């Protein structure tokens, strides 16, 4: 952890992440206005004392909308990642631990999934599921699972041949003990690191789906949707697209930096260089 805090990337990531999490947890209480409330006379205004970040085409307060949208945006990322990483890891760990035929079959199937560009895959699934926040989350999770399974599997494989695992096998430990106490705790590092970085991808894909009209639906305050709804007005009031856009970027960057720093902290080879 000390390593982590000495790394400027980690510190910046941590600070951004803290801000994002505070906003995600308390945003709705911090918001000065109801995010759906129209202030018709003040439509499409830039920042002012009344509306700190300006207003959108309906005269809704952008700051309030951003604050309200934070939970859905952030928890979308976390949820999709958790689901995808969870499912993927289970598959990967099973493949890695089982080895042999089970492993080859699982890996071949995953290869098939990985043969499609990520966003295309998500797009098809979300079309299939019918659009909407939950559906988009599921779609992202499904997209993530094969890649995660690979990472989990290779983490397990690299640990599985470590000598302390061999020692446990030679000692005659039970399978449960070996997987649960010797392999998993040591394979978790790369999985967690990858998961953290993927949160930022999930947030970006979620926002992109919102933008394409396949994710969150109006009048949700999801940030990608906010950009998409306001796009028509971007030249009349750039704030209404810049504000949610930057919010997405900051959030994604927070997770990204944090994950990178975590990776460095976990991987002594990188952190030394």
């Amino acid at each position, binding site marked *: 952890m000390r390593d982590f805090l*000495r790394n400027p990337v980690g510190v910046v990531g941590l600070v951004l992440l803290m801000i994002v999490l505070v906003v995600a947890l308390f945003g709705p209480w911090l918001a000065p206005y109801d995010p759906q409330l129209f202030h018709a006379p003040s439509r499409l205004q830039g920042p002012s004392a009344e509306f700190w970040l300006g207003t959108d085409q309906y005269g809704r307060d952008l700051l309030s909308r951003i604050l309200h949208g934070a939970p859905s945006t952030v928890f979308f990322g976390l949820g999709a990642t958790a689901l995808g990483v969870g499912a993927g890891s289970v598959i990967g760990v099973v493949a890695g631990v089982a080895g*042999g*035929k089970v492993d*080859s*079959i699982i890996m*071949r199937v995953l290869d098939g999934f990985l043969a499609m560009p990520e966003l295309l895959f998500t797009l098809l699934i979300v079309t299939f599921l019918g659009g909407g926040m939950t559906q988009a989350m599921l779609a992202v999770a499904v997209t993530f699972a094969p890649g995660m399974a690979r990472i989990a599997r290779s983490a397990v494989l690299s640990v599985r041949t*470590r*000598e*302390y695992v*061999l*020692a446990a*096998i*030679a*000692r*005659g*430990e039970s399978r449960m003990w070996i997987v649960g*106490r*010797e392999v998993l*705790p*040591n394979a978790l590092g790369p999985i967690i690191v990858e998961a953290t970085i993927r949160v930022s991808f999930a947030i970006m894909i979620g926002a992109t789906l919102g933008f394409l009209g396949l994710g969150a639906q109006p009048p949700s305050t999801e940030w990608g949707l906010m950009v998409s709804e306001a796009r028509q007005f971007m030249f009349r009031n750039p704030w209404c697209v810049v504000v949610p856009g930057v919010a997405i970027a900051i959030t994604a960057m927070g997770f990204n930096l944090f994950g990178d720093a975590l990776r460095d902290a976990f991987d002594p080879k990188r952190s030394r260089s």
Partner: protein
Amino acid sequence: MNTSERPVLEVQDYGLTYDTPQGAIEALQSVSLSIAPGETHALVGESGSGKSTLAWAIMRYLPPNARDTGGAIKLSGEHLLDKSPAQMEAVRGRRIAMVFQDPSASLNPAMRMGEQIAEVLIRHRGMTHEQAMAEAEAALARTGIARPAEMLRKYPHEASGGEKQRVGIATAFACNPELIIFDEPTTALDILTAQQILDLFVRLREETGVAALYISHDLGLVARIADRVSVIHQGRIVENGLVHEVFRDPQDAYTRKLMAAVPRPENRIAVADPARGPALMQAQGVSVRYGDTGWLTRVMGRAPAAFYGAQDVSFDLRPGELLGLVGASGSGKSTMAQVLSGLRDFQGSVQFGGRAFEGRRAFDRAYRRDVQIVFQHPDASLNPRQTIGTILSRPLRLYDLCPGDQVASRVRDLLDMVLLPADFAHRYPHQLSGGQKQRIAIARAFAAEPRLVICDEVTAALDVSVQAAVARLLADLQRQSGAACLFITHDLNLIRQLAHRITVMQGGRVVDTFDVADAESPARHSYTRALLNAVPVPTELKGVTAA
């Protein structure tokens, strides 16, 4: 040798410091040494003593956090410390060349080896590409490679370690430098190849009369090839002189300690010969096949060809005995260790304590308790996420060796047994040194109160002095517990100190088994003889007694 000539290399009172976040590390402190033309000067010392640092300092190739703290380095009288980076570029490879420890890592994997020799000639001797290639071929021929022209066209991964090291040596000699620095050029090679490289070094030195700085931690080897030796300890030269004088009469305590640690066959540290009786363990016709993969993998075309890692191996072990298992790299030693500790499927049968086991799944809990294994890498054999206490208590709980409330005290006993303080129980493996970790691994094996302990190169990753201590500890534990031991190693001197009998493997088969006392007997298998001859016998050290 004419020592009155101007020295090729002179290091005077040189110091170097690394700046790190934890503070400055004084890696070298007022180091002085001087190498005369034609002289081979050995630099010995344990890991981390500053040997490589001195080599980099001479080459003026240092990481950004390194800082000269004084003194001078002169090459044939020219001050190297004053040279600009561009000037040093012209010195490196041209006037001082270097041969590295790991030939696999020090060659560019994406470039044909011919190019890698030729580029030095093009750079320093202004040759055209054709001339350089012709010259490279000649240089390679001088290293005794059978088909040099062919070798030039190969990529590094297509050559063996020995061949790669020959390319490295040919490159170093290519521009007739004044000085060549050898940084442990044989440690990454197996015994027989190392022997050949050493012979090559001696021959080329004689032919060219080049001065050499030879870095090593192997005193036996140094004794054979060097004229003078400097002993370095924690960045200081503690002793310096002609090899035979230093070794005959070491002045410094550290030198003496180093020398005492050198394994010598005649210094037996083995337990007394066990009583001859029925065998404790017998391997009968054990074979292991590698590379048998499923049809799916084969269809997908990723399967390497299958082959035998061990074939029809038979040997036995008596109660309380220490059997040495030796052989070149890849001869199947670890494979046998894995078979016996139930880590690998095999054909044939293993008998233990009167019971026969056919195949890995036949091994039961009782067998697994009786047979314990210790691995080579201390870093990898302890779970980094468990404390030492947890690690050591695991066999106790698993085999129900003592009541739950006594586990902690038994762990303390175990730590005590391997000469470590009791409070280590709360530490994590990364807070221990390599030697300490290896002791924990040994303690864990003995915690199960086994009847057989398999040690797979347990000393290979350790420093010479630590090696000796670990070997002694092992013998002590064996004496206390009466367990038998299968000791796998490359180090023939060490095994002759430790073992009662030695089994030799080559290419997956057992070729020879003999009593230690019969090692020099003419009845030995030719391969055994080759192995024994390849070991640099530290003759110069003979008079020295163990501390």
